[in-house]
């Protein structure tokens, strides 16, 4: 199988690295070679965060090429747009319908773009907007939005659903198990 790429992006503190860890573990269990990359450090202080996962029979670079990724899983809309150049022309953009103004916007120096949805639709093969932050809050914890998004991604990938559930049970702390399983189901069953 040719190497495939998935890019996960958002804002530091949104659970992006946990999400890409879950995804990598599922792909490894599914029998693929997997490579994952992430950036630590400064970006954790409210900056933008990107993690990339590549998988296939034999994977060399942990980084995707521009215009190559099959899916982008965006935890925030501005970050979806920032990374759109990595998406292939037929690629699918899965986006949390959530705006988090960066500091230059919050402090009034710049404006948050108003036309992100239209721009994404113009550039992506398909765009799915999911109110993951709101749905997670309804489940009782905003932080579960990352697993809701993973659930949505799982519904679009050809991998046994049970593998995802197994990895979630194994990886998350026991006291958050129920919450995260519910979050996964919420994302998996989501229809826009």
């Amino acid at each position, binding site marked *: 199988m040719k190497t495939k790429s998935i890019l996960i992006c958002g804002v530091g503190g949104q659970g992006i690295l946990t999400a890409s860890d879950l995804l990598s573990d599922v792909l*490894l269990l599914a029998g693929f070679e997997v*490579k994952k990359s992430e950036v630590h450090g400064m970006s954790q202080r409210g900056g933008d965060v990107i993690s990339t996962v590549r998988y296939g029979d034999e994977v*060399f670079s942990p980084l995707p090429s521009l215009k190559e990724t099959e899916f982008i899983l965006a935890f925030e809309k501005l970050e979806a747009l920032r990374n759109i150049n990595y998406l292939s022309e037929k690629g699918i953009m899965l986006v949390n319908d959530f705006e988090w103004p960066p500091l230059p*916007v919050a402090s009034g120096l710049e404006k948050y773009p108003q036309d992100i949805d239209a721009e994404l639709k113009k550039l992506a093969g398909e765009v799915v907007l999911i109110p993951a932050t709101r749905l997670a809050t309804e489940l009782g914890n905003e932080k579960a939005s990352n697993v809701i998004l993973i659930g949505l991604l799982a519904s679009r990938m050809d991998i046994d659903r049970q593998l995802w559930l197994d990895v979630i049970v194994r990886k998350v702390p026991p006291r958050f198990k129920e919450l995260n399983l519910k979050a996964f189901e919420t994302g998996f069953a989501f229809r826009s």
Partner: protein
Amino acid sequence: MAKELLSGNEAIARGAYEAGITFASAYPGTPSTEILENVVKYKDVIYAQWGANEKTAMEEALGASFTGARAMVAMKHVGLNVAADPLFSASYIGATGALIIISADDPGMHSSQNEQDNRHYAMAAKIPVLEPVDSQEAKDMMIEAVAISEAYDTPVLIRMTTRTSHSRSAVELRERQTPPVPEYQSDFLKRNLLPGNARRRHVAVEERQKKLAAFSDDFKLNTIRKGKSRVGVVASGISYQYGREVFPEAAFLKLAMPYPFPVNLFRRFAAELDTIYILEENDPIIETFARLAAPDKKIIGKDVFPLLGELSQDAVQASLALKDMTPRFDCNTIPRRPPSLCAGCPHTALFYNLNLQKVYSRGDIGCYTLGALPPLSAMDTCVDMGASITVLLGIEKALAKAGKTIKQVAVIGDSTFFHSGITGLVDIIYNQGQSTVVILDNSITAMTGHQENPGSGTTLMGEEARRIDIVKLVRDGLGLEHTYEVDGYDVKAIKELLKREILRLEPSVIVVRRPCILLYRKAKWSPMGVDSQKCTSCKVCLRLGCPAISTDAYDKAVINATLCSGCGVCAQVCAFKAITFVDEKGLHSNNITLETYLSGGRS
């Protein structure tokens, strides 16, 4: 065989365990920090510690090696500048027990002030350097490095990069080798580098160089992969992976040990080829040796591939005009998302005051370097670890000679002060400086993810430790009577202390104290809220650069209750008393005392 997805840093730690390392030391720094954080998981069999800086960490590892114990030391690339002194001595001394130095370089400067290539250090100190291509090789190389170190009586440098340190790939886990039992035996001629001894040791180093060059020709991890064309690629580290993406038909020479350069192996590889691409991040080190070894071959290196920043398969393809890199969307048209001080950060009030008082601030390395960014914009210079204090003194003295003064302070964190700030402060006191040093003491090394330091009261291994009190160290130890302590949330007290101490014609220290909000956020603290009737849209609160504060459609300040930690700093800067605590009953009355703010509304 158990297989796990490990980051390069986790793999180095696992390799340390399997290779029988029993001593590990480091100073945290991105992208190297997680190495020791993972080594300490094996604390039953490995002693692991944070050094005060990279120099102390390396010397401690060298001492451990003297006993025959297998020792390692880890640091980020610029840390090796600090540890360069013991590095060069360690090369002459050699290794009784293995001595493995891990340098995590940062091409692209994700979290660093430069992108130096630390392979130069291996060459200058005349020790071998290994570069892994993935996590499996990072683990394997720890085991190989230990064998090389003990067989050739040499320290070994392993060069990681951000991408190998922070990428995950599958690793096979194996059993731990039985480590040697340490026992101290004196070896005066090797370990006391008096000039007479050192001259003999230099002879040994040069002989070792020749043996290592021969070893590199046969090293099992330096591998040739046959190609289907007369094009070849020589690569080390993560660049090898980018090469495999771009040149599927080419022959490959993977240099696990780029130095000493395997001249004969390279010539054998090159003999069958017409064109040779050299892929390496940062400087043309392999390329320089390759051109010398085969001057008649067509070699393509940094004349085509970028010298600056990280490589990637895209960068390689773009350099050769193999791919159209024109973006479909221009990302420069949308707002950037720079990192910022956290909501409730105990450093914010200081930078807000420095900005208001128009003080030149000499910055240092840590979270607080973010005080340089707008709207705080309160850091004029930032050079390297500890340089806030020393640069401050240099500017003061040079201007004084010309009869001039400026309003300036140094700003340094607790961990950086322990690392290399103390000596600078000694210089100020000894040389009769008149400057003010602000030490931001949040009792932890925060930027790299909260590592313990000498002021924390605990060690890396989770043991209770003596806590070194910075105020006592400066006031009682260095004898600086003008040493003051202030709460990081007390805006007015910080303002007045700064005003007074900057004018003082004697040296002074202000210790701004308050633990890091990410560790000590109290759940019971109420968030702040804005009374929009009272808010005049003056936007003074926005000048704090707090990520929880923004404006609504009517230009009134609004506070995000989820992000807000209830530190109360914004309430203190609001002249209209529009900001106060909120709870389930709504906004509190605004007749709140400073004590109430400092205790999160619950005094």
